[in-house]
């Protein structure tokens, strides 16, 4: 007795599903591959970061008569250390220099904390300046102040170091500025 081969009829619905999949799978894949924007989360010890930070801290550099030997060390992704030597200087004078360029390439504001100090107690007032705003780091009586700056999304600014002293300083002093994100 001749038997009818039913296999092609059984396979046919699966072939239709396969054909539909050939259209649906690339469509969904392309939609899924389309990137989206998301602010990087600060991962804890259980997470792993696969990105570089949006916030950029760069050394401006250049030459200055009083502020010399500038270095910027990126100790980790959220900590920077700026070092400079402040040379001997005259009384009742003010000195200013752009020291750092701060950039926020992200979509959310970033808070930057600053803590500056010198290795000696001189009657110098040291502050940071952004535009017209002044942020006091070290007072005439050597009192230290921590400062915070909010950096707006997709913005960049230059940070100035501003030094004022009442007395004549006869020796160089070392200045350090800790920057935390």
């Amino acid at each position, binding site marked *: 007795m001749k038997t009818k081969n039913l296999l*092609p009829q059984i*396979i*046919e619905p699966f*072939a*239709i599903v*396969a*054909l539909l999949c*050939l*259209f649906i*799978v*690339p*469509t*969904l*894949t*392309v*939609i*899924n*591959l*389309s*990137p*989206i*924007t*998301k*602010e*990087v989360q600060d991962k804890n010890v259980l997470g792993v*970061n*696969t*990105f*570089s930070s*949006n916030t950029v801290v760069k050394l401006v550099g250049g030459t200055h008569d009083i502020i010399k030997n500038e270095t910027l060390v990126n100790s980790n992704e959220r900590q920077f250390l700026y070092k400079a030597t402040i040379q001997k200087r005259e009384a009742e004078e003010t000195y200013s220099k752009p020291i750092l360029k701060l950039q926020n*390439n*992200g*979509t959310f504001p970033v808070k930057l904390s600053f803590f500056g100090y010198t290795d000696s107690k001189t009657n110098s007032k040291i502050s940071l300046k952004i535009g017209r705003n002044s942020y006091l780091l070290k007072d005439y009586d050597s009192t230290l102040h921590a400062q915070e700056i909010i950096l707006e999304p*997709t913005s960049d600014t230059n940070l100035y170091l501003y030094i004022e002293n009442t007395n004549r300083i006869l020796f160089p002093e070392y200045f350090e500025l800790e920057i935390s994100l």
Partner: protein
Amino acid sequence: MSRLLKRILKISVWPAILMIAGKLLGIIAANIVYKLDFFIDNQIEGIFSIQLYYTDSTTMVLVNSLSNLLMIIILAVPTIYFIIKTSIYQSTLQNPRTIVKITKLNLLKWIAKDDTSFLLIFIWCSFLLVASFIVIAQNIQGICYSWIGGISAVLAIFSVWGTIKTYEQEIDKIYPKEKELY
């Protein structure tokens, strides 16, 4: 299983692979050329579990637009090639002048090989349409450059028009136009 279904399945594999490959290559190329930072994250909600992220919207739009452009080009080039080839082939059957021109250009072998069918053009055009719809939708959402959306729309319209013309030519083979016969 019907021969038509077999043939559709066989033809559909390549545009499906190229659609994904085009998008993926576009993303990789944009990341390499512009030296971009991206990260991949898992999400519990929604259809997809893995998502590609960029930290600022400008970069995201740039990468998405370039990858969309590459995907559209990869799908449009073969579609347009098949349409042009078929239309020239059909023209050679009806117009002796075209045969002369083709012979002068030494394209007779290329044209004489009738390996392009309406089905092939229809499937490639369908994939191009799907890709164009995605690009236009993303353009409306503001995550793709408008000029890329425009290019996609133009290519989609042109390929649909070409597919319809090919269909008409195929139909003419079966039911010839009366005015041409008498």
